[in-house]
Structures are given as C-alpha cells and as structure tokens.
C-alpha cells in the first residue's frame, strides 16, 4: 500500500495494463504530449515510457477515436480511449451507442468488443460545453458497462477490470479528483470487480447511495450528522452497470430510509433509477419518502458563484437526511 493521488492511481492501472498485455493501447487527444504538465494526470509520461505505438495522441476527432476503439477491439486488441470532456461524448456517441454497445448483439455473439472508454468529467470553471454529467445516458444503453470511481484504490482496480473485461466499459473520471484525493492504493494487479458496491460508511438511520466525487460530500454530511446522533450509511456504488442492487436494497431494508446524491441534474438522472428501484422493491419498508439530492435542472454554469450554486453540497445532504429522520 502506498498513498497515491486519484490520477496517479489511474496511471498505475493503465501502466499495469500496458505492461501485462501487448494488445492494450491508449489513444486520445493530448494523452501523450499534453499542454498540462502534471504528475497527477492519468497519462503522465506514459508516452515517454511506452512509446507512440502504445500511447497515441490523436487528431481532434472524437468519432474517429471511438471508431478506432470499436474497430481495433473487434480485431482482438484492447483499446483504451479517452474522451477529453463529457460533452464531447456526443461526438463519439454513434460509435459507442450504436456500434460498441450493439455490434456483438447484431452478430449473434460472433464478435466482441473489449474496449474501454475513459471519459473525463467534472466542473472546472469552463461552463456547460466542457461540463455535463451524462452518466444516466450511458446507463440507459444495454451493451455498455459503466463505472464511476470515487477514490484512488477503486480507480486503479476498476480501470484494470475495465481494460480486461471482454465487453465495452465506460469509466467516468472526475478530473478535479485527480489531484484533490489521495489515499492508499494496493500494489500490483489488484482489481475491483465490476458491479460490486462498497459500504463507505456504516450507519443505521438512513441509506445514501452515491458514486464518484460526491461520495466524499456524502461522507462529510455523515460526519456532521453523526455529531447530531444521526447515523447515515453511505454506499459507494462504484459501478452503475452492472448495478449492485442487492447492496442498496439490503441497506435500505436495514435503515428504512433512502437518499441518492449526484452531480448530474435531477430530472431523469441516475438517481431516478435508484429511487424507482427502491420504491418498487421496498414498498412498505420505507419510514419516509425516498429523496434525491442532485443538481438543479440547468446547464452547468460558468461563473464561480453559480457553479457553486449548481453543485449539491454536504449541507443539502445533511438537511435532507435530517428531514428524513424527522429531525429538522
């Protein structure tokens, strides 16, 4: 175990994958030579280390980046491609949605597509053409797997599982985590299975399900609530597809209360699926209505006070839980 940043942990996963399998290659815009020189970036110095055959800077051409992944994976390689920011996923979406996710099905199982798409997400004062949380789109498409790590160890373990999974996996990396989150990371090829949630904090009074950076927001809220005698169980989903429904439902059955949290906008967000699932499965077992904490239904704003306004806060989470347990 060594303490690493989130970005370094992704880098370690990528490095191992590149070392272990000659069929693994990376491609994306500026993943080799970058305008950013930052040791916490996931592809930092991988070009220098593995050369331009394995680590490939591409033209600004998202459809081609995704097409490269689909075509090369069908030939048996294990492409790991990067979409620079989530809004540009739209430009790659035909390849990912209509091809990566469907061509195995259409072939009657003759072909497979062991590709990984890394999508960088998060807010960084650039506005809604650079920031858009679209994980619900991906989760709605059969044929894809979708993972969303919150911490360094999971980031490394999930990227390894993604790369060596026989099917297309999308991994969403929140850029601001790259340098802001540091934690212990196990050495070597330690994978985190796709579809297994993690109890980030045990609790008795309510269950909160989250993924990615807001897991830390939830933990902060749980800390605050603990001081008030309210015990919040925080589940870090880690993977949206496959979804570890059992972990969520077991916890809800234990606590009798449920809240979700994400940075994406509320309407038709992933939280809707979680709440729907809980409402369907735990009817009569809930002591209070299920709740969603999410961004308002607006594009990600640019100017700092509005960007802050967009972001769901630990205070909002704590308030929501207080109401759920009847303590507000």
């Amino acid at each position, binding site marked *: 175990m060594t303490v690493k940043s989130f970005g370094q942990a992704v880098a370690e996963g990528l490095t191992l994958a590149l070392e272990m399998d000659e069929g693994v290659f990376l491609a994306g815009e500026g993943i080799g030579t970058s305008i950013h020189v930052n040791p916490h970036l996931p592809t930092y110095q991988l070009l220098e280390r593995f050369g331009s055959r394995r680590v490939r800077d591409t*033209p600004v051409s998202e459809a*081609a980046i995704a097409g490269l992944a689909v*075509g090369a994976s069908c*030939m048996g390689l294990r*492409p790991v491609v990067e979409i620079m920011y989530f809004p540009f996923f739209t430009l790659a979406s035909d390849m990912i949605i209509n091809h990566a996710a469907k061509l195995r099905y259409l072939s009657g199982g003759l072909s497979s597509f062991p590709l990984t798409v890394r999508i960088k997400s998060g807010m960084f004062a650039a506005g809604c053409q650079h920031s858009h949380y679209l994980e619900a789109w991906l989760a709605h498409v059969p044929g894809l797997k979708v993972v969303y790590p919150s911490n360094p160890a999971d980031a490394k373990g999930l990227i390894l599982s993604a790369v060596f999974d026989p099917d297309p996996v999308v991994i969403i990396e929140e850029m601001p985590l790259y340098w802001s989150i540091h934690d212990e990371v196990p050495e070597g090829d330690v994978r985190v299975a796709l579809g297994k949630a993690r109890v980030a904090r045990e609790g008795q009074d309510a269950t909160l399900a989250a993924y990615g950076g807001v897991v830390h927001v939830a933990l902060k809220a749980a800390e605050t609530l603990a001081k008030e005698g309210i015990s919040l169980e925080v589940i870090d989903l880690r993977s949206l597809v496959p979804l570890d429904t059992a972990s969520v439902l077991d916890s809800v059955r234990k606590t009798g209360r449920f809240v979700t949290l994400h940075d994406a906008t509320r309407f038709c967000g992933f939280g809707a699926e979680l709440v729907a699932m809980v409402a369907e499965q735990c009817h009569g077992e809930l002591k209070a209505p299920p709740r969603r904490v999410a961004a308002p239904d607006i594009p990600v704003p640019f100017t700092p006070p509005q960007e802050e306004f967009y972001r769901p806060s630990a205070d909002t989470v704590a308030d929501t839980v207080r109401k759920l347990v009847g303590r507000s």
Partner: protein
Amino acid sequence: MQPQLDRNLRLTLLSNMVLIRAFEDRISELAREQGRLPGMQITCHGQEAIAAGVVRAMIREDVIVTNHRSHGHMLARGVDPNTLMAEIMGKRDGLNRGKSGTLHLADPARNVLMTSTVVGAAPLLAMGAAFAQHYRNEQAATSVFFGDGAAAEGSVHEAMNMAAVWKLPVLFVCESNCWAGAQSHDEHCPIKRVADRAPGYDMPGVVVDGNDVEAVYIAAKRLLEQCRTGRGPAFLECLTYRMHGHGEIDEQHYVDKDELAAWAERDPIELYVKVLQTDGVLDSRDAVEKQAVQTVDAAVAFADASPYPPPEEALEHIYVHPIGQEG
C-alpha cells in the same frame, strides 16, 4: 489496355457476379411475397462487379467492413449462402442467429468483420480494424464499402483523416451508384467525383468503371498492395448505377427511365460475358447460371427449413458474460 488476367480468375469473377445476381434476384422475389422476408430488402443489382472485383483482389488475411448493401460483398467473400439466406429471413440457423437480418451481417471467420447500417460508420470501423493490422505489423489491409451518399457524413472524413495521418492500410471503396435513397448525386455532393477528395488526405484517389469487373479488380489489387506495404490508405471510386430501388419497396418514381435503360445496357454481367466469350474463355454461360440458381435454391430451402430463434434468445448475446452471471 488492361493486362490479361488468369483464366480461372476470370471465370471466378464471372461466377461470383452471377451468384450475387441470382441471390439478389431471389431476394427481390421473396421481398414481394407477404411475410417472407422481415424488413426492407436492399439489393446490389448492377453493382456486382464491384463486390467481385474488390473482394477477389483481397488476400485471405484482408478484412472487409461493409454497409447496408452488403450481400454481394458477403457472397464474393465466400460466406455460406445457406446461412446468409437464413439470416436474412431472421432464422435460427442464420449466420447471426437471426440477430442481424439483412442489415448487419458479420462473418468474422471469413474476415467479414462487421457491417454497419449507420451510413458513414463503416469507414470508421474499418479504420479501427486497419489500425489493429498496422499495430500487429500484419501484411494485410481492410477494404471498406460505402456509398456516394455516405461521403457527406463527417464520419467518413474523420476515418480518412485518421487513416491518412497514421498511414493505416485501408482501402476506401466508394460505390458511386448515382443515388442516396431518392436523392441524386448533386443533391449531396458538390463535386462530380468523390475520389477527387482523396488528395486532400494525401491518398491516391482512383476512379474506375464500376461495371467493368476487371478494371475494378486491377485497380483494387494495386491499391491494396500499396495499403499492405505501409504506404497508407487509398481511395477507389467505382462508378455504377443502382439498378433497383433503394429498397425493394422503392418503385423509383424519381428515376429517369432513359437513364436507367442506358445503364441496363451496361449490365456488368452482360459486359463481362461478352468479353469472356470474345476471348474464348467462357464455354457455357448457362452452366454458370444454372449452378448459381441451384445454390440459391438450396439456400432458400435451408432457410425455409430453419425455425425462428426462440423469442427469449433476444436476451442473449449482449455481453460475453451475461450480467449477474460473471465468472
């Protein structure tokens, strides 16, 4: 003057075209029988020389990626007509267990890697496949078939650009059949020859008579050779005409009858039969045609005998390990 091709090769080119024609004729007939073939049927009538010419120019290691008008490419590549017909009917013994139908055929064992019916997508997939060939340092290339209409899509541009920047072994085969659905060439393309865009990607752009199977074969062979030897991608535009409607339901009210008749005069099979007869290569045209019809009869019989796949099989073939059942 084209160089003289080997006699066996010439006969194969002919029999490939004749088989394709017989197959497509049958599709055309079956499409008119209520409930026989699910969905819209798109045939390659008139474009057989492109399929036969390009595919015969390929080596076994070469890979094909194709589009909605793919039957000819499949047959030329030696895909089993039985499983092909069964697939088009959506049957259990179809090439893709009824998951594809006519539109998304794949036969990876014969290097017919993928078909996409999203117009313009095939070139991107082919670029990715060619990347793998290049990455592994294989002496092989990928041929991708697409239409003149597809050339308007951004995906074709991105595929050509990336293939050119990285010198990937892709042969872009544009079947310029004068139509994209009901839109004529000048409604979607501002220049006469799509191949004239090739220099903008630093690749050779060759235009051939797509109804002259030997011309197609010779050009494709040369360009594929270039692809396989590290000289980067190439573009081959085959001028031809779509002799049936966009689909078999399309009665082509928008097509000039004289234009169609003029192209019918240039039927690629008739032209080649004449050449081979003149050269004394072809003994009996009838034998070739009879053989083709027998093959197609057998294919229909095979397909008819196959049941539909079970409805619940719709749940399969999404992931390699179904979710919830991972090792």
